[in-house]
């Protein structure tokens, strides 16, 4: 699944369509969204370097972690950052997001791939800065770039939900943006805020604990320090929205290791997804091949059968035609006059209640049968 979403981001957008957008969301119980973000970031960086991706460059909006940490991360994962200036630009909203450090005047002049941004609350300015960085990197032509935002939660703290929505919308619909992905800590916001961002994304990857707690309350520290949290594993649930509106849900497991996050296929994946979608039923909706054959072989007892004579199974329409032919009878008639030949054996007679009981092929003929 992780592979699928990464490929979707790599392939980018079609002409005249919005860029694919991935929302990675986690909670304090499974706070490994950062690891998924790093995984996607490294994947995109390596495909951009290998020129396998639609985007020719990557603009990273760093709010949560320092830009140098990201460059170190890429280096650690074996990605060549020697000429990073040509394919990655970091908009540094981490070092001084509100301009507090102006008066201290202690910032060393940043160069190369990092650009300082000092007013995170103004998302219009931030949009212009992202686009400018992207254009500087890939040029004005048709070449595209990918945008990564490492903390939508941080943006929501400084700006309103509508302005963040507008920023993401503008980025997605911008011609030169091939794909966009962001991380959000869903328990820090109202459900409304997370939903809005999910509507705006074509893919949602949510990290959930393997053991769901019975209490569906908001996560708190009890959860954070609970024993089952002493693991670096969880469920990775991906929701893909197709162009035609179809939504596909997939699930796998992840484990965070020293070299990064690893994704493992869940053995009974389709069953799990089915369980999540279908309401809880106490019976099977589907029949197996054997069950279907057995069912077809069952001889229904509501009309007299056997005796070497032709088996006549109740067929409303045919009996109606019969009745129409035999217009003399008006009340109930025994349909099969076998009684004289089957003495000493159990017999089942079917008597039509009345002629106004209209046969209907849609009705279950066994509806009132009490066996």
């Amino acid at each position, binding site marked *: 699944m992780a592979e699928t979403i990464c490929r979707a981001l790599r392939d980018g957008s079609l002409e005249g369509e919005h860029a694919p957008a991935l929302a990675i969301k986690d909670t304090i119980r499974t706070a490994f969204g950062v690891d998924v973000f790093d995984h996607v970031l490294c994947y995109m960086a390596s495909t951009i370097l290998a020129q396998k991706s639609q985007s020719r460059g990557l603009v990273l909006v760093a709010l949560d972690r*320092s830009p140098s940490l990201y460059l*170190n991360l890429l280096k650690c994962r074996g990605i060549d950052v020697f000429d990073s200036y040509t394919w990655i630009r970091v908009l540094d909203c981490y070092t001084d997001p509100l301009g507090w450090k102006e008066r*201290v005047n202690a910032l060393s002049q940043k160069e190369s791939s990092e650009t300082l941004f000092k007013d995170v609350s103004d998302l219009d300015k931030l949009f212009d800065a992202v686009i400018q960085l992207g254009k500087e990197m890939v040029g004005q032509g048709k070449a595209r770039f990918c945008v990564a935002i490492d903390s939508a939660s941080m943006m929501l703290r400084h700006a309103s939900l509508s302005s963040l929505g507008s920023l993401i919308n503008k980025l997605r619909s911008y011609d030169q943006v091939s794909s966009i992905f962001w991380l959000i*800590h869903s328990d820090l916001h109202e459900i409304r805020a997370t939903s809005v961002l999910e509507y705006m994304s074509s893919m949602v990857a949510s990290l959930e604990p393997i053991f769901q707690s019975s209490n569906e309350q908001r996560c*708190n*520290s009890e959860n954070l320090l609970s024993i089952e*949290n*002493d693991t*670096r594993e969880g469920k990775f649930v991906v929701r893909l929205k197709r162009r035609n509106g179809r939504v596909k849900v997939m699930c796998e497991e992840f484990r965070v290791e*020293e070299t990064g996050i690893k994704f493992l296929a869940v053995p009974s994946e389709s069953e799990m997804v089915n369980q999540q979608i279908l309401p809880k039923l106490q019976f099977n909706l589907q029949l197996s091949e054997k069950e279907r054959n057995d069912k077809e072989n069952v001889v229904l007892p509501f009309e007299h059968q056997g005796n070497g004579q032709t088996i006549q199974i109740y067929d409303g329409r045919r009996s109606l035609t019969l009745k129409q032919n035999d217009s003399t009878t008006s009340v109930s008639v025994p349909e099969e006059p076998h009684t004289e030949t089957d003495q000493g054996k159990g017999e089942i007679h079917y008597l039509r209640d009345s002629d106004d009981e209209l046969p209907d092929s849609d009705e279950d003929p066994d509806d009132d049968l009490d066996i």
Partner: protein
Amino acid sequence: MEQYLSLLDQAIEEDKTRVSDGAGRVVLIQDCVETSGAFLLHHLMKRALSRESSETVIFVAFAQPFSHYDRILKKLGCNLITLSQNGRFIFFDMLKLDCPDEVGGGRTKSGLVDLFHKIHKATEVIASPETKKSCITIMIDDLSLVEVAAHGSSNYVLDFLHYCQTLTSEVGCTLILLNHEDIYSSSEQLTLNLEVEYLADIVIKAKPLATGLATDVHGQLTVLNKRSSNEHGKLKKRIHNFQFKVKENGVEYFYSGSRT
């Protein structure tokens, strides 16, 4: 005794892989009314100021005056007056800080911004090439009173914390925060607590003994070390549970059931 002490130290042990990045850590101590976590702050302060280490502590006090910490640390074997004269202990008395949030929609924030400037200047002086570069620990006692000083604006407090966090990557200092967990009951206020939990690399939680009162055990600690790894870069256990007994001149840490 040394072995017991090391139980907490083991749990919050440095992440060997992250030291190479030069980035410091954020440690959050959470306590509750029944069990104060102040002793952990004193323990970590003593550890940082011990003779073996060359760390400098910047202490931002919202809860208690200097004399309070001085008396406690004296019993633990540290003289704060001497250390502050040597420049190893910098104390910011913020007991009377009053910094209302944005005034009239403008950006006239002062109190916490000024405080950050002071801390930043102090770290620059300590980490400057002229002085011998040493590790820096910034301690804030406690967050709930920072929020009180900010007139309840948790966003303002979080901005301040973010700026303090930037120092961990700029000069590699450690940030230690004390906060009370049980004062955030409503979901709106819970956000501050959650935000700080996301921010922290290590969460230490002090709780009363789950099985009730005991004379020999004063409470239990749960330590979550989000990114702990050993010298081979292998990830270690994240959660450590043990109990403690606060004594006059130190604290004993021991596993549950190991005391008779």
